[in-house]
């Protein structure tokens, strides 16, 4: 069995193959990097650090813009 990690992705647990970078996860999810922002363990993760590998137990938030007032 390939190694896996479990992270919390937008509030829900998700098992992923390891090693996996944030950039690779975004590509997997087909999310265009220029329209989203990422927070890792409650701290903003700037785009230039998307190469960071995810670790077991990481809490990841991926957000975008939606309608609002």
């Amino acid at each position, binding site marked *: 069995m390939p190694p896996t990690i479990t992270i919390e992705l937008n*509030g829900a647990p998700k098992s992923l193959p390891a090693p996996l970078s944030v950039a690779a996860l975004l590509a997997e999810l087909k999310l265009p990097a220029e*329209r989203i*922002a990422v927070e890792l363990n409650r701290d*903003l993760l700037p785009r230039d650090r998307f190469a960071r590998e995810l670790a077991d137990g990481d809490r990841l938030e991926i*957000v975008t813009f*939606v309608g*609002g007032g």
Partner: protein
Amino acid sequence: MSPAPSAPSVPPDPLLADAPLKIGRWSFGSRLLLGTGKYPSHDVMRAAHVAAATECVTVAVRRVDLSGREKSLLDWIDRTRITLLPNTAGCFTVDDALRTARLGREAGLSELVKLEVLSDPQTLLPDPIATLEATKQLVKEGFVVLPYCSDDPILARRLEEAGAAAVMPLGSPIGSGQGINNPRNIVRIKQSLRVPILVDAGVGTPSDVTIAFELGVDAVLLNSAVALARDPARMAAAMRHAALAGRHGFLAGRIAVAEAARASSPESGTIAAAKG
């Protein structure tokens, strides 16, 4: 994506010349800001933005749809004409508002933020203490902060002192359509601050917009009044005219209110018999 409709061609009226609205390093020709929430569709939203001739719209920061089925709102906003103003709507703590502002800056690549720190989900009224605290922190982090706040002149002054680039007092509670509940406070805020004052929240009708501008505010931000109207694009156009009416009425200088009637026509030389 269908081509964007072009702005309605209105001949420029030299009598209605106005300075641009300046917030931080941004400059806007339109003094009407619109939201992007609650429209029946993205197409209707875009039509309303065009009809209002807005140059700045608010957007909310939310978890991305991981199914990939949702279409991005951004495809319906012409960013060559319209600046995005990310908000921190839905935040009830300073910490959540700071995190949301940072995410919005990263997603939008601009430091403009409409700061909302609300007190509770029932009233949706802004928490003045938390709003001031979050403003101080975001200014420190280089944001251009537009705090949404209650219509308290002293709080507004404190927000300006904390470095807010503009202050956005509510007209009345969010989405209520009650209009400007406390016009004298809005005037007081405008008169005692240097930064632009934007009336945000509670505006229901074009006449509410006109009243806000007649009070002297620099801009008005609208969402529900347009998005939930039966015909949002027509309402947006009405709001544009209402904003111009109020703004230029203010700039033209209104007459003083008098206790008694004052005749507009000469009182002498009439053929009528003298009365009394």
